[in-house]
């Protein structure tokens, strides 16, 4: 099995974590290496996701219900399933809306009409590194549900940003409180009240 790597650094460089390709990550998953852990691949690093709390699980379900109503039957609300962001990264966003039906999506999708992460302790990571990853993947609409803050942060307009982890960030960030309504970019006629998403 071959591994696509960037050229090795010149001598005298500091050691680095050995990066994994998507193929290697899949091979390890299929061999059962991660059976007792929930993992994602972010920039060649395999990261363990914490076991979701009760409120986290409730929020995911409430959001799924609201998004199914907003997008209608011609879309797939994928929950904690892989999103192939290349380079190599394969996060598992809490929710991702993929247009079309499951029969037409035979490998992990490379984009989504909307990605939603439900955040408790991972808020900074979801606002920072994860946001840059999704911006780089061209995700036009990225929401972070701040459970403790009872609000939703909406990130839009991915733009190049040399200071961001993956070279891109979102130019627009808007915060919506419980009483506010949000319309997904890809379902502009729908209006979702933030309180409907919160447990």
């Amino acid at each position, binding site marked *: *099995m071959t591994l696509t790597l960037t050229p*090795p*650094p*010149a001598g005298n460089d500091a*050691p680095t974590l*050995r990066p994994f390709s998507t193929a290697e990550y899949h091979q390890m998953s299929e061999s059962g290496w991660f059976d007792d852990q929930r993992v994602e691949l972010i920039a060649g690093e395999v*990261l363990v996701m914490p076991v979701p709390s009760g409120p986290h699980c409730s929020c995911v379900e409430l959001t799924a219900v609201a998004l199914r109503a907003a997008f209608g039957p011609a879309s797939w609300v994928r929950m904690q399933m892989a999103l192939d962001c290349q380079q190599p990264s394969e996060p598992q966003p809490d929710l991702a809306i993929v247009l079309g039906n499951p029969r037409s999506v035979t490998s992990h999708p490379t984009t989504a009409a909307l990605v939603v992460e439900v955040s408790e*302790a991972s*808020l900074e990571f979801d606002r920072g590194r994860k946001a840059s990853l999704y911006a780089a993947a061209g995700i036009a609409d990225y929401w972070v549900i701040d459970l403790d803050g009872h609000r939703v942060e909406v990130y839009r307009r991915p733009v190049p940003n040399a200071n961001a982890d993956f070279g891109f960030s979102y130019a627009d960030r808007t915060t919506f409180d419980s009483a506010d309504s949000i319309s997904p970019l890809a379902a502009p006629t729908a209006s979702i009240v933030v309180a409907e998403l919160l447990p």
Partner: protein
Amino acid sequence: MSVPLRTSPRRVRFRRADVYRLAEQGWFRGRRVELCAGHLVEIPPQSNHHAASVQLTCDALRRAFGDGFWVRQRSSLDLGPYSVLDPDLAVVPGTPRDSGPHHPTTALLVVEVGDGALRYQQGRKAAIYAAAGIADYWIVILAARTLEVRRRPVPNERRYAECSRFAPADTVSPLAAPHATITVADLLP
């Protein structure tokens, strides 16, 4: 909820058995990899100065320890379920023939030659060597032309109680070969 929650995801930890299996499958062909507290760390190729220093140090240690000891170059030490490190040099008692099929789990003396990996060797590696109770841990610092000697490991604190520095003209004796004196300059290219 008063228990502090982790704020960023943690990397998956690999175990020694996992890494041996990956190695057998050829995952690390052409790359040097160490398992450092569960993380797979890739060591970049070495410079010629580094290679020269490793050889010079090997020769000096052979003279110091004599027969009945094996001066292992860039070979593995099995330091626990989550750490398999490959120090530049490690001195173990016995000969290659009577060492058996498994890597040693300790060493009388570990020497790392430090250039680009110096912070890693002084930091995370030193912590693992201390936790494993390696009594004598040296780092030959190429750029500064000094030798750092770490002794008196405190395993449950993963640190060494003593760290001394020696200049090229100084001499040092390994704890396990106290009759021998090694001039630091002999280790430097």
